[in-house]
């Protein structure tokens, strides 16, 4: 019962993080705050993926020599969750780096971090 609740809690926390992240990206005016909101969103997705691979009373998905190959598939946690999270962390860092670089370049050009000022559409 406690284990089920843990998975559920994981999904609830992930949903909160994703919603806060999306809201922050959409409604905050400061570009750095938008960037922080993106990291919250990314963390929420990671938490959701980890929670997805959770198996009640499960074991680490490494097949030991003495393990039963008939029981292992049912007991082992889904290995892809952590695998995807690892990749998502790398992607998140890359995206953050590119966003940060672009924000720095635009800050030097406009002297402001306000999205309403910096991203104002002025066609060449």
């Amino acid at each position, binding site marked *: 019962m406690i284990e089920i609740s843990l998975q559920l809690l994981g999904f609830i926390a992930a949903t909160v993080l*994703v919603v806060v992240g*999306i809201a922050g*990206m959409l409604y905050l005016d400061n*570009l750095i705050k*938008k960037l922080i909101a*993106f990291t919250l*969103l*990314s963390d*929420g*997705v990671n938490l*959701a*993926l980890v929670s*997805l*691979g959770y198996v009640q009373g499960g074991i680490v998905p490494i097949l030991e020599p003495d393990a039963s*190959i*008939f029981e292992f*598939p*049912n007991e082992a946690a*889904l*290995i*892809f*969750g952590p*695998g*995807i999270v690892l*990749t*998502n962390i790398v*992607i998140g860092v*890359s*995206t953050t780096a*590119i*966003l940060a670089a*672009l*924000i720095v*370049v*635009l800050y030097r*050009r406009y002297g402001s971090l306000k999205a309403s000022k*910096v*991203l104002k*559409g*002025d*066609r*060449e």
Partner: protein
Amino acid sequence: MNEAVTNLWSVPLLIIIPILTAILVNLLYNKTKAIRAISVGASIAVLAIAVLSPYGFHWFAGHPAVNSDGTYTFTASVFSWKLSLEYYYGPLQQILIGLMSLLLLFTVLIATKSLSKNLGPYLAIIFLTYVSAAAVLMTNDFYHLWIAVELGSLLVAGLVASSGTAYAQKAALKYTFFSALAGSGLAISLGLILGLTGYVNITDAIHFLMSNDLGGMYAVLYVAFAFLTLAWVYAGGLVPVHPLKSDVYRSAFPHGTVLLQTQSKLMLVAIGIVMLRLFGSLPFATDVMLVISVLTMIFGVVMALIQTDLRWILAYLIVSHSGLVTVGLSLGTYRGIVGGIFQALNDVIYMSILLICCEMLLYFGKGSTSIKFGGGVAKKSPWLAAFAVLGAMAASGIPPFNGFQSELILLQAALEQGLPEVAAVILMVSVSTFVALFRAIYSIFLKPEPEKTSESYVGRFKMPDVVFISLVVLLSISLILGVYPQLAFSFINESALKVVLVPWVP
């Protein structure tokens, strides 16, 4: 060439060679001659591999999803999950990656001719953009699909920002912020499908969905479909992302946009096919795709009609014609899928002709692409004017060029499905494309040059050989496919049939 379930090593070379080239040219930075030699050599190498490689699989882990005797790997064995990360290289991949490799070669040749600053990092981004689209086209697992789409979106931002203007940097920032949303959506979609089926391989996942009753879990499948649709819309610049994508197309160097629009169209095809294979049997799935496609066609072409700059016109027309590609796929029929894929192929070719003409006007003619700027280019460069007019004819669906053939198939497919309103929108797009393009072409190329004005193109255009050869080759392909469309059908038909009849087969 025979299809075989063998672990082909030519297939990953299409990814590895461009990645190594990107690393190398990035390190060389500004050593123009060395960068030019390496990047041209690598472009020719991937083109040769794309043309010569046999058909078959390459699997990175586990085993192929389809066995050599035609059976599938999915069995109710003790291991309820299988690690089958694989690429598939078939006729469809061959023609699409072959064309993209040719465009990569032209892009590299033109970039090394027109740019000198920061050439290494710029070409590195070009090569990695190629990698992202090639991976999406070949992959038969969600893991590679997700990584390639994410990589592709970051590279689009890099390619756009590298043009150095404030508008381009803003476009790149907005696009990257949205990529964060779409990328997260794609990750969740992947996680949900994985959670439902236990398979990361698309073939295995489809087979599981077809042979198991999901019961109350169908709602989860719909959520996964919604998130995958978000990624599809984002990768292809469909409604409602079209303003971001048109900004991107407009802001990059025109030769960069050649590769950007190729990447977008090919990703639209690849992800669209995955969506049809996986969710095609879900009620409303193709309807949702169709509505998005029709809205994209309408919004794109209406925006193109009100622009006064050829680059903006092309940016919106590329978006609008993306809708033509997806409308075919969304119909979900054999003819519709053939029409959609053929339209993607044709669209990439004629839009590249027009974009290279823009490159000539801007960087070799030292002028502008605005219709209010001077005129009389046809007198100074008759060849360029001829290429622009013929490219615009192909884009407008005028015979004997390739655009006509694919739009005809799309019309037939829409009417066959009992959707005359969709056929009417396709016709409207075709006519509006003609009006938007020829209004600009008349003002820039055909209208007499005003006397005594400071706003004029310098002297006589000297068209570099690489640009001339690129335009001749692309126009020849456009004409050949317009007269002999069956040349392309022999590559496309099999894939379209598989999607309709045996969707689990890549």
